[in-house]
């Protein structure tokens, strides 16, 4: 893949992507986290700076950012400054440090590239797919083995499997994004509220979380889909319902440590309401670890969605969902193995990419968790 060449040089090409996405959430932390710079979260930037050999700073000479108000000679020293003069500088510096740690991790960069490629393919599926994903020629192109005309072969209805896999990327992306958007906020709210409120609120919420955590996720998702009726939206809902508890646990654990800090006491003295404290001062700090966790869970989400599709409970037949494609290929697998092979490989590659990306993000944002 092209990733090896890209990750060869430390930061110029890769960092815009990594930095841009991360700083989006990092900068939202700036309101509260500057006060506790030397605390754990600052550690990520610190670790990156001490670990990062200075030779890397030679490469990114093409400074770009229009917002770079580099006073002391250029963008990089501004970002790497040990004494940030503004909140924004501290936040950007931290993001830059994390991005550099991330960019040094070749496997993580490979994951990022694959995920970006997935997004690209999903957006331009109509242009990239060589044939129609829904209509095939039953007379001439049924169950053809891989060839130059049909790279991954054709299925039982004469449809080009490559085109169907390409269109299936949209469904995968849809599922992943939707589950993340549904499950992460639920877990975040439950966890932070439980952690901050304490007492019976905490006990009740955590007991509910434990109950959900003790459930078998796939079976529960199956039962939910059975009740709601098969379909991709219901599959997403079922997966989201069963996947929020780990985020709640995580957010609660973070909240318990944050709750004791001085700046929370200061905000309390200023008369901020509990909701305001939770929403504005605690939740942003839990965000980065939850995001790491969500990224690590993406592979599981993809696999569960594909499993539901495989059992015929996710996306319904004409839709080229990857799991459903495998279920279709299963009927012919002993003689025409390629029908099932390509979509499975696609699931594998994308899940692997999310795992690598998640590992890299964890190492970059939270060096403590790395054993």
């Amino acid at each position, binding site marked *: 893949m092209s990733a090896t060449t890209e990750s060869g040089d430390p930061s110029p090409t890769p960092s815009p992507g990594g930095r841009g996405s991360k700083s989006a959430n990092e900068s939202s932390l700036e309101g509260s986290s500057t006060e506790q710079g030397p605390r754990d979260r600052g550690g990520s930037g610190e670790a990156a700076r001490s670990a990062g050999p200075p030779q890397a700073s030679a490469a990114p000479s093409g400074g770009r950012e229009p917002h770079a108000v580099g006073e002391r000679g250029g963008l990089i020293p501004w970002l790497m400054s040990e004494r940030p003069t503004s909140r924004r500088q501290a936040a950007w510096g931290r993001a830059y440090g994390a991005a550099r740690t991330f960019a040094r991790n070749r496997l993580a960069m490979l994951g990022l590239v694959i995920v970006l490629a997935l997004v690209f393919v999903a957006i331009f599926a109509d242009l990239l797919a060589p044939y129609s994903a829904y209509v095939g020629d039953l007379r001439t192109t049924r169950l053809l083995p891989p060839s130059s005309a049909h790279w991954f072969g054709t299925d039982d209805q004469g449809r080009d499997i490559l085109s169907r896999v390409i269109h299936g990327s949209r469904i995968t992306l849809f599922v992943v994004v939707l589950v993340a958007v549904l499950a992460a906020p639920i877990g975040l709210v439950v966890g932070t509220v439980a952690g901050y409120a*304490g007492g019976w609120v905490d006990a009740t919420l955590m007991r509910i979380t434990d*109950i959900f955590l003790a459930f078998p996720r796939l*079976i529960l998702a*199956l*039962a939910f889909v059975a009740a*709601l009726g098969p379909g991709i939206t219901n599959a997403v809902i079922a997966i989201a319902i069963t996947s929020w508890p*780990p985020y709640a646990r995580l957010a609660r*654990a973070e909240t318990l440590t944050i709750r004791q800090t001085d700046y929370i006491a200061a905000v309390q003295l200023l008369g901020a309401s509990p909701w305001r404290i939770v929403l504005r001062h605690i939740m942003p700090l839990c965000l980065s670890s939850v995001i790491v966790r969500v990224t690590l869970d993406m592979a599981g989400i993809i696999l569960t969605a594909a499993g539901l599709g495989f059992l015929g409970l996710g996306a319904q037949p004409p839709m080229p969902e990857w799991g459903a494609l495998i279920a279709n290929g299963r009927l012919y697998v002993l003689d025409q193995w390629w029908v099932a092979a390509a979509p499975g490989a696609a*699931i594998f590659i994308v899940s*692997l990419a999310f795992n690598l990306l998640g590992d890299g993000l964890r190492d970059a944002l939270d060096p403590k968790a790395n054993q």
Partner: protein
Amino acid sequence: MQPDPARPTANATATGGAALGAVPEAVKPASRNRHGRFLRSFGSFLAVLFLTYLGLLAVTFFIGRVMPIDPVLAIVGDRAPEHVIARVREELGLNKPLWQQFYIYLSKVAQGDFGTSVLTSNPVMQDIRRTFPATIELATLGIVIGAGLGVPLGVWAAVRRGGVVDQIVRVLGLIGYSVPIFWLGLMGLVLFYAKLGWVGGPGRVDVTYEYTLTPVTGFLLIDAARAGQWDAFGNVLSHLILPASLLGYFSLAYISRMTRSFMLNELAQEYVVAARAKGLSETRIIWAHALRNAMVPLVTVIALSYAGLLEGSVLTETVFAWPGLGLYITNSLQNADMNAVLGGTLVVGSVFIGLNLLSDLLYKLLDPRTRVR
């Protein structure tokens, strides 16, 4: 299966955190005798068990009731006259208030009555009793393979950190977390059954043996061995080995990774240095000292991944046409046989919860440090 690395510790912080508010109370029991504390933790274990089961029952009940398919219509058809519908509704108890229905549901489940399966027209409990041994047989062999290989691999990877085995464990783990199990199963069937002919195909046993084996325990391996039918035993094993190694691989991916990190943790402890200074052999230090301490969290990891295998067998059983509980559930799902689905969900859920909580309890029992605290 993924959330588990942090679980035992997360639990510890959870209980620790809850006690933070009431410090004096948390301190007091520490001065009591050990016995009472154990009883207390066992009592809270039972309470949690009860609550969790109640939650599971509530969820299955809820799923059964909000289902868009009206159970009355499923029985009488959509052309039945109004009064027939009303009568059936009354017979099923659907006209009662929800809490009353829930109570009836609870008491029925407590008697092991999950209703009748529409698909097989047997009581669901009977079906489950017939299919569950197949699943247990598969998952047990899977965990034996997974733990038997995963633990030594993990230890090896930790001892030679950054070496070849370490890389292999890493790659195995990554692939295990990323590959769809049903797809790997399909490809395994194509390769080992269709192309190479090394293993038996789908199903538990060849048709020739299907009726000569008398099911006593329901575990075909044991049945065949007891009857002394060694050719049948070999046949059963050839069918079992591929799906079991598949499940075993997935637990291996997880177990070896966890073993590695536990072992790294232990090997960094001071008692290891002390043992080395004493002149103990490296083998003894690793296997007798470090691994023994690492076993404490490992037991819970293995229990959890066993529970995960019981659940994960749903997809594997579908691929291998394995007549276990998972296949039973999916077949029922496709026929909107809600009694069977919920019964199966309850049984798998119960076993899962049981193992889950048992592993928590085991953790507390085995690790003296968590008791002292």
